Each structure stands twice: as structure tokens, then as C-alpha cells.
């Protein structure tokens, strides 16, 4: 086995042929690939491993930082330093907790505004950029009611959809993936179109195609999901992003634009899976109030309230 012998070359050829056959089988099978069974076995087996690894990853980093701040010296100094390090770590941890609480708050706001029934989950694993596919693993699966083709969102807006679900984990196809195509609607109008991802390696923007070539779309227009048939894979009303620039394509059937998504796909943490769609299309209710409209101070002490001053 140790040298480049004839036997080694036979093994090389054998494994290369095996790989090519696997690729061919899986490629031709598409969504009904005969190898999907292998995938679900792998996610059932390795999903829990990823959960454990993700749980270790945070505390280990903290512990490494804590140990490196501990110097040696006299007992008093050591005690104080240890105490200091402990406090620092607690402070850092509370920062993470506070961040997470804020994310959960935002998620609950979105879920409440849209009347979506969501299951919260944490992103535990991310695919390598070299694999050219923009997917993440979350720590909720079929046991939590997660099924393929459910909408995934967070407090900022649309994250993607569930591609496959294992017992305790699920794989989410992000909206920036070039394979994911999302039906969208412009805020306040009935103009519809669809966005496709450009992939994170090309920047995280989305391409927008509006179906009506005559439609007026300008920079700053906001988009929500249009809602798919039967709300799978996308429920209606989820904020998607803002139009960044409009491409002038005179004479074409559709208008195209570049959209900056609300979600930061490189820093995903807490997400929600919509397990039950809203009974009624929430329209634009989930979009946060426009920041450029004149902000009304919430605490105003006026002796004589003017009529019509609240609008």
C-alpha cells in the first residue's frame, strides 16, 4: 500500500470509476435520486455530531481566551486575574446572550406581524465555500415538525427554504443560492417578479426580474415574498430586500434589478421555520416602518394637541 504499485493504480481507477458512477446516478436522479437514502442516513448519524460540535465550539473558544488571560505570579495576583477573567467571560457571554435575546425578539416580532407559526432553530453548520452551494444546517428536524419546502426566516427577513429534513437537523437552501428562485411583490403595488441568488462568492445580492416590462421600479423599493401555491415553499409577506439598482434593458420583456437582501447571510444564527402559514396574506404588515418617514417621538408633552398631528 505504501508505494505506487500496480495494485495502487488499480485501486485508484476503481475508486475514480465508483465516484463517477455515484455522480452520474445522483445527477440523473435529481430530486428522486436513488442515493437520497444515503443522505438521510448521513444526516441522522452526523446531525447529532454537528450539534455536539457546535455546542462545544463556543465554550472552547471562551475557555481558550480565559486560560490565556490567566498569568502566573503571586497568589493574590493570580486570584484577582482569575476573577477578572471570569468576570470578562461572564460579560462576553452575557453579550452573546443579549444578542440572542434581541434576535429572538425580532423573530417574534416578524412572526407576530405576519401571523406565522414558527419553530426557532439555531444554525449549527455551514457548507464550505468551495462546494459552491449556499446551504446551512439547523438544529431542528422532523421531530420538531420541520418538513422539506418550509419557509425559513429570521428577524430581518427571508433566509431561504428547507431543502431536506433529518430527524434532529435540517438543511436550508439560502435565498442567495443561484438555484433558489423566490416569487416577490413590490411593497404597496401588485407588481410581481422573482429573485434569484448570485451566490455568496459573488457578493450576496439577488437578481430581480419583474414580469411586467412597463413596471416602474426605483432604487429603495422594498420587496416581500409573493407567496407560493399553498404557501410552499414560500409563505406570503416575508420581507426580502431593497432594490439597489435598476438595470436598463430597453425592449426586453421583463425589467431586471439588483436587490440587497435584508438578511446578512454570512452571520446567520437564530432562524425560524414557518411550520404553519398565515390564514390571510399579511400584505406589507411585516415590513418595518420606513426609516425615512418623519419619525414621531413617542413621548411628546404638548399642552394643546393639534388636530391631525398624529399622521
Amino acid at each position, binding site marked *: 500500500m505504501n508505494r505506487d504499485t500496480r495494485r495502487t493504480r488499480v485501486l485508484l481507477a476503481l475508486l475514480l470509476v465508483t465516484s463517477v458512477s455515484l455522480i452520474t446516478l445522483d445527477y440523473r436522479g435529481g430530486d428522486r435520486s436513488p442515493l437520497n437514502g444515503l443522505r438521510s442516513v448521513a444526516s441522522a448519524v452526523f446531525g447529532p455530531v454537528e450539534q455536539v460540535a457546535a455546542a462545544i465550539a463556543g465554550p472552547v473558544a471562551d475557555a481558550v481566551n480565559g486560560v490565556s488571560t490567566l498569568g502566573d505570579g503571586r497568589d493574590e495576583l493570580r486570584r484577582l486575574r482569575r476573577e477578572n477573567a471570569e468576570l470578562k467571560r461572564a460579560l462576553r457571554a452575557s453579550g452573546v446572550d443579549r444578542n440572542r435575546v434581541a434576535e429572538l425578539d425580532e423573530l417574534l416580532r416578524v412572526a407576530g406581524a405576519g401571523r406565522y407559526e414558527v419553530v426557532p432553530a439555531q444554525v449549527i453548520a455551514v457548507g464550505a465555500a468551495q462546494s459552491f452551494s449556499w446551504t446551512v444546517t439547523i438544529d431542528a428536524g422532523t421531530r420538531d415538525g420541520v418538513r422539506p419546502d418550509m419557509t425559513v426566516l429570521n428577524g430581518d427577513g427571508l433566509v431561504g427554504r428547507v431543502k431536506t429534513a433529518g430527524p434532529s437537523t435540517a438543511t436550508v*437552501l439560502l435565498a442567495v443560492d443561484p438555484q433558489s428562485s423566490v416569487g416577490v411583490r413590490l411593497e404597496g403595488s401588485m407588481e410581481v417578479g422573482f429573485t434569484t441568488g448570485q451566490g455568496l462568492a459573488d457578493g450576496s445580492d439577488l437578481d430581480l426580474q419583474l414580469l411586467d416590462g412597463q413596471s416602474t421600479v426605483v432604487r429603495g423599493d422594498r420587496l416581500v415574498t409573493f407567496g407560493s401555491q399553498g404557501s410552499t415553499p414560500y409563505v406570503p409577506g416575508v420581507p426580502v430586500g431593497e432594490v439597489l439598482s435598476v438595470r436598463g434593458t430597453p425592449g426586453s420583456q421583463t425589467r431586471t434589478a439588483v436587490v440587497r437582501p435584508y438578511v446578512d447571510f454570512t452571520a446567520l444564527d437564530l432562524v425560524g421555520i414557518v411550520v404553519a402559514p398565515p390564514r390571510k396574506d399579511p400584505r406589507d404588515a411585516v415590513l418595518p416602518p420606513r426609516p425615512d418617514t418623519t419619525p414621531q417621538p413617542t413621548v411628546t408633552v404638548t399642552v394643546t394637541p393639534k388636530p391631525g398631528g398624529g399622521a
Partner: protein
Amino acid sequence: MVSPRVLLAAAFVVVALAVQVTMLARLPLPGATPDLLLLVVVGLALANGPGFGLAVGFCAGLALDLVPPADHEIGRWALVLTLVGYLAGLARGEARRSAFVPLVVVAAAAAASVLLYAGLGALMADSHVTWSAVGRLLPTAVLYDVVLSAFALPVILAWAARVEPEAVPR
């Protein structure tokens, strides 16, 4: 009877996979992801030769094709890492002579893995693979893998030496 070096390789592959998808891929680095699994394949191939290297490469690649959140055709990374493991194993003799050789092998393996994987995608008309994406991945993949190998390779080679004392370059 499973030989100790096979057990060691399996342990390395599982740990590298877990660390890669839960930590390395989440680092806010521009471009590629530091590929610890590739370093495990290269390290074990340099320690044990082309036959063992290609076997480890195939198994590691198949694992990477299967574990979530993988969403590409099964067999793509298996094909790429089988070749990488075999070719890295051929450099085993050279690696005994100079400490510089493993770094060159890592750089070449990183570049080859990105190009081969993207090339396979292009053959299958994978809409993800674009020239600009490959252009951004290639230099960053080589850089990150070479930097990471300075820490990871000595550990992998030391463990391989402990398991199979006479097989490892010194």
C-alpha cells in the same frame, strides 16, 4: 482486525469534518473556507503513501458529500479528494528530504481541489460555478490552507508517526 492507522484516519476525518462545518466555514473570512479535511488527506497521504492516501481521500470526500449541509451530487468531492490523496502520496519520498515540500504539496492540493471541483461542476452545467467565483476562491483557498497547514500538518504527521513509526518522513 482494523489496523491502528485506519482507526486514526477515521478519527481524523470525523473530527476535521465536524470542525470544518461547525467552525471554519462560519468564520467571517472572505472567499474560500479553510479546508481542514483536505489537510488531513494530504497529511495522511504524505505519511503513508499514495495507496493509503487515495483510500483516505475517497472516504473523506464521500463523507463530505453526504453530511449536512451538503447539497451537491454525491461523489464530487470523493472523486476530487481521491486524486488529491493519490498525488500527495506520490510526494512522500520528497517530503522526507525537505520540510518545504509539504507546504508546496498543500498549496498545489488546495488549488487542484478548487479547480477540479469547479471543473466537474462546469461539466454538469452547475449554475453555481462562475469564473468570478472561482477567481475569488482560488487564491484565498491556497492562502488559508497553507496557513492552517503550519498548525495542522505537524499534529497530523506526529500522530501518524506514533501509530506507524517507520512510515513517516522525518
